[in-house]
């Protein structure tokens, strides 16, 4: 077979020389290799005290966005669910009643919006598909849990804090503060 | 009673009880463990007789090597089954009685004939010689080596030839499949 890279080493099947058969010399060589590792830099960091920075393109948990007046932007068009390659998103639409204008921006809204974080592959296609700027992937990695049910994030879990009621939390969630 | 005497009686009692337990215990593994206790008691006696070398060699060879081999064999034998029923034939019983009796005879004769076990006191009565402990240096390694390689060199070499032949025999049996 033609070599694809020049890194592959040809297996040496020559009979071992006397020094190799003594085995001691090789043990000494190995011991010097391990000894040299004492002086190498440790890649480990002390995790909870020190954290590594996330990559700027990191995609974490989903967030359902609100506008400046605190109304949900999602209109339950279903484009995100359609775009999702893992079929992680489910939603149920409902019509906005009179007197609910301060809650929902559009006339149609998502009564139920669920993301199954076990299915989600965090590709970000839902984000791109959304015409209303409603769904975003945050920088929070998905936390571990014990049950399958707890990985299905409901609308309440996904919604960003209301800017009119909790401006601080809203700013924090947007990463503005 | 001096400490030496207390130790002597304690060791003798230990040796006797353990030796009886070797015969009485149903489980062969327990028998071997009691036998090891016997060896320890005898090593203690050797130390009382100022024969440290014999004591230690007794431990190394008998307790440390031979008994381990015994344990090997017994542990690998079918151990879950009940001990075999005592239905020995008449002949075996008689053979056992005769061989045990002759051994006893030999031992009694040896004890009777060894003249230095008894001495005559001032009144010219025969009284048992008092046991002496921690005197004499024939058990020390240097003296023992000198005696072995000068006075007893022929028996010593013959016994080593015996061991060699045993080893050769073991190898031959092992090679035969």
């Amino acid at each position, binding site marked *: 077979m033609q070599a694809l890279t020049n890194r592959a080493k040809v297996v040496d099947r020559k009979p071992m020389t006397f020094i190799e058969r003594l085995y001691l010399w090789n043990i000494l060589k190995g*011991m010097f290799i391990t000894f040299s590792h004492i002086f190498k830099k440790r890649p480990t960091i002390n995790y909870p005290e020190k954290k590594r920075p996330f990559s700027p393109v990191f995609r974490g948990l989903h967030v359902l966005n609100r506008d400046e007046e605190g109304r949900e932007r999602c209109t339950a068009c279903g484009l995100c669910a359609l775009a999702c390659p893992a079929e992680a998103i489910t939603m149920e639409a409902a019509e906005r009643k009179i007197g609910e204008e301060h809650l929902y921006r559009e006339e149609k809204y998502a009564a139920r919006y669920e993301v199954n974080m076990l299915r989600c592959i965090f590709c970000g296609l839902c984000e791109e598909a959304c015409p209303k700027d409603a769904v975003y992937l945050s920088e929070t990695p998905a936390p571990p849990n014990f049950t399958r049910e707890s990985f299905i994030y409901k609308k309440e879990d996904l919604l960003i804090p209301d800017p009119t009621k909790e401006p601080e939390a809203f700013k924090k969630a947007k990463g503005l503060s | 009673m001096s400490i030496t005497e207390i130790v002597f009686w304690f060791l003798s009692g230990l040796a006797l009880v353990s030796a009886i337990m070797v015969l009485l215990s149903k489980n062969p593994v327990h028998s071997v463990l009691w036998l090891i206790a016997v060896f320890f008691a005898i090593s203690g006696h050797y130390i009382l007789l100022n024969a440290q070398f014999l004591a*230690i060699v007794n*431990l190394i060879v008998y307790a440390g090597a031979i008994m381990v081999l015994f344990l090997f064999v017994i542990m690998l034998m079918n151990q879950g089954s009940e001990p075999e029923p005592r239905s020995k034939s008449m002949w075996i019983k008689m053979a056992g009685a005769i061989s045990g009796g002759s051994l006893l005879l030999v031992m009694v004769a040896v004890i009777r004939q060894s003249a230095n076990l008894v001495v005559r006191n001032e009144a010219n009565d025969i009284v048992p010689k008092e046991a002496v402990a921690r005197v004499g240096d024939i058990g020390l390694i240097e003296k023992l080596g000198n005696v072995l390689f000068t006075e007893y060199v022929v028996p010593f070499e013959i016994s080593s030839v015996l061991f060699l032949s045993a080893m050769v025999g073991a190898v031959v049996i092992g090679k035969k499949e």
Partner: protein
Amino acid sequence: MNIDWILVLEKFLLIATVVTISLVIAMYETWSERKIAALLQDRRGPTRAGPFGLFQPLADGLKLFMKEEIIPNSANRFLFILGPCLAMMAAMMTSAVIPFGGTIEVAGRQVDLQVADVNIGVLYVFAVVSLGVYGIMIGGWASNNKFSLMAALRAASQAISYELAMGLSLIALLFMSGSLSMRDIVTQQMAGDWGGFLGWNVLYQPLGFLIFLIAAFAECNRTPFDLPEAENELNFGYHQEYSSMKLGFYLFAEYINMFISSVIMATLFFGGYDMPFFNESAHAHWGNWLALVGIIALTLKVGFFIFLFMWVRWTIPRFRYDQLMNLGWKKLVPLALANMVITGAVVLWLNDK
């Protein structure tokens, strides 16, 4: 009959000190094992329990004590408990004949830093080492588990195979010293030139030392000979059915053995409590400080050997069982025999000259 009660008290204190020191050192060997493993593998090791994780052994011990004590239903209860006791006892008993230092003077009494200076010290060590097999065999058999039994037999056959090479390699050394007493062997080495350094037996018996070292690795069940307790491939080993502190005793006995064999190697081959390039007899007026120098020298040597044990453990992979037996019987024993014969010939030749 009068008993020298002060001598009894002195020996009692000495024994208590030696036992405590070996236990503490074994404790911190577990810590340094983790730390050295981490260093050699570019990790950090225990850092959380106390400064540099120094309280980690305490936490480990506490954990072992809190675990459930399980005695299997079909196990032989008495022997099951006896096994770890024997292992621990055999590990502790060896330290009786080791000279840990010279002589110190306490309240006008000359106290030897050695529990018992018997004239058969080296043989005593062998006797105790050969008894260590029983702890393993009894534990493995009493568990009433076929895997434990097989592992126990494996461990015991390894131990008795390497005892042979160990003994033969030492005989050459005894030819040279002409004494079996550990203190005599050390004093002879201290008499060498360069403050004792040229008297070290390792310079005259390098092959014997190498064989002894390899056999010591095998006796302590350390990598590359740790088949008796190959956690990750041969199902744990003879202590498979053990839990809680009884398991802890088995593991602890291994660390004590490691400490003791380091001390024995330092004593027999590396001059014991002899500080190299430092003439002890010229500084006899230092008194107790001289003994301290000796203890420090021995500690340094022992520390190096313990490090060597761990260094090798994290470098070399485990032997296969047939390789183990081949190395023991077909390589080490003949080598040790050859070493013995050559040393004997040279000693005789030098004596004749």
